């Protein structure tokens, strides 16, 4: 789909409709794909095209948002990720060594079976993976109230002992949907953990992603992401797990702090380049006395500071009657070093 779609064109083809439907579904905010699907269904009014679009878009959305689904036998939750994907509808839960069958469009698990030996890592790898997973569960439980996490082995899962490289992916996904507060939000982190046998190091690459949608009296969306790297030495499964989780904790806490910094800077610093809270004169705009602006123009001309910024601010004294006028000259190249001159003390009215 392109922006240059001819606005006058007649009925779109089913193929166009499907592509557009998929685009909307793929761009659904966290937790809102069902609403988008309902809207799309009524707009394209073509059930075949609609079903073909949702069956392609939902799996991509579910994996991109790393949604979690409860296992039917109540043994836990399975994360829908590319790392645990066995085929289109089967996803591995490494913690319980089970494979869940998933209905993407309904976002439910329909079946669960034990994983086969081929689907699981060797016992050497599993010792590293399981120990890391146990530490991860502890960290996530104490930091994310509704966080779901998993550790997948994505490279070298059949390594039998020392002398070969292998790679894990640590995934944390936490979502919160609260329509009653008019907001939905999600946190996702993906950490690639490479165990390099030859260099005896463990390298970490993290990608953290935060999305939020506020929809009280409008549509405001926040989208923030961050990437980071770290490394540690290759140690025993227990020591590796501890130092990896410590690094993850450190980076995620640091990112959280910088996000909070971004938020707290919004009102005073970041927004100021868009609109100030108060005019440069520091008082509300004198709508009741706009005559002064013709005066301002005259003064500007007289003082020869047409390139500068001139404003007159007036204020009332405690009795509320006698006006006091200030002339403010601000050099546009040197904002922040404004020069104030009190020129006269009389009411402008």
């Amino acid at each position, binding site marked *: *789909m392109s*922006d240059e*779609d001819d*606005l006058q*064109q*007649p009925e779109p083809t089913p193929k*166009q409709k499907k592509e557009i439907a998929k*685009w909307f579904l793929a*761009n*659904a*905010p966290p937790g*809102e794909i069902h609403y988008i699907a309902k*809207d799309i269904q009524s*707009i394209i009014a073509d059930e075949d095209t609609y079903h073909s679009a949702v069956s392609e878009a939902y799996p991509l959305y579910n994996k991109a948002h790393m949604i979690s689904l409860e296992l039917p036998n109540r043994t836990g939750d399975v994360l829908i990720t590319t790392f645990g994907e066995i085929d289109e509808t089967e996803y591995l839960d490494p913690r319980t060594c089970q494979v869940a069958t998933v209905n993407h469009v309904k976002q439910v698990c329909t079946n669960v079976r034990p994983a086969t030996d081929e689907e699981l890592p060797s016992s050497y790898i599993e010792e590293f993976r399981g120990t890391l997973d146990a530490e991860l569960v502890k960290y996530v439980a*104490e930091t*994310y109230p*509704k966080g779901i996490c998993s550790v997948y082995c994505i490279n070298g899962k059949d390594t039998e002992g020392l002398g070969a490289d292998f790679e894990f992916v640590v995934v944390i996904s936490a*979502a919160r949907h609260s329509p009653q507060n008019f*907001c939905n*939000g*999600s*946190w996702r982190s993906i950490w690639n953990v490479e165990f390099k046998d030859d260099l005896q190091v463990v390298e970490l690459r993290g990608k*953290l992603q*935060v999305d*939020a949608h506020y*929809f009280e*009296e*409008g549509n*405001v*969306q*926040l*989208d923030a992401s*961050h990437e980071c790297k770290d490394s540690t030495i290759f140690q025993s499964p227990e020591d590796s797990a501890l130092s990896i989780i410590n690094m993850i904790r450190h980076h995620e*806490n640091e*990112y*959280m702090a910088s*996000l*909070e910094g*971004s938020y*707290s800077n*919004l*009102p*005073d610093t*970041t927004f*100021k*380049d*868009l*609109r*100030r*809270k*108060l*005019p*440069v*004169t*520091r008082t509300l*705009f004198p*709508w009741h006395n706009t005559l002064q*602006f013709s005066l301002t123009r005259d003064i500007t001309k007289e003082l020869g500071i047409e390139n500068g910024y001139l404003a007159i601010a007036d204020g009332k004294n405690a009795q509320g009657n006698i006006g006091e006028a200030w002339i403010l000259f601000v050099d546009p190249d040197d*904002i922040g070093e*404004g020069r104030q001159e009190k020129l006269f003390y009389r009411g402008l009215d």
Partner: protein
Amino acid sequence: MEAAMDLMRRISPNHTETALSALLTLLPQHSSDLLSQVDQPLQVLCDVESGKEFILCEYNRDADSYRSPWSNKYHPPLEDGPLPSADLRKLEVEANDIFAIYRDQYYEGGISSVYMWEDGNEGFVACFLIKKDGSQTGHGRRGNLQEGAWDAIHVIEVGVEEEGMAHYCLTSTVMLSLTTSDKSSGTFNLSGSIRRQMNLDLSVADGHLCNMGRMIEEMESKLRNSLDQCSPDYLSVDMATFPSRESSYNTGCNYYDDCEDV
């Protein structure tokens, strides 16, 4: 149409243009409704006579031409394009002058335009528009924003004057998009549009312009406040999702505490 508007309330405001063009393809029969109901970023033209830029909207458009508030002429030229009455044009000229000063004091740059027209019931309607590019390459004085856009649309319906009073109905929309980016904190994008309405009966003794101006100023401050504070306020709700840390920000920051760099 209802479903289309629901989609527009859900899709990220960063994708408004793509989403709108997709909806136009799907619903060609609703194209005029979609174009008038979906808020899009404001466009600008240059008035050839005064050399000043003016903002385009539905309210100064006739066919494919737009009336400039500076020269009162349509661009591209259009014969028989509707013009406000002489009295209303006088108020429009004054409003444009004053609003440009207001805009400069709050926005330190940007473009503004005011349009007025008679409505069917002997009252009139005024539309105040502001467009500000606050990015490093635009009018951002402090260079905080890699990308930053603020578009405000205020439409005020002014009723007929009765016993020295008039009814004012203000509908304001602010569209916002900002991105900050640095190595330590990654990229941070906030985009959105919010809309709010305000109804007041005011004495016309101070003049329409004064009443409309005060309402817009109050509304803009409120909208800015809910946009900039929505994040911390809502985040404290959202925070339950995120690593539970002691929040360091202070949501009770003083609204008028804006004095550090006059």
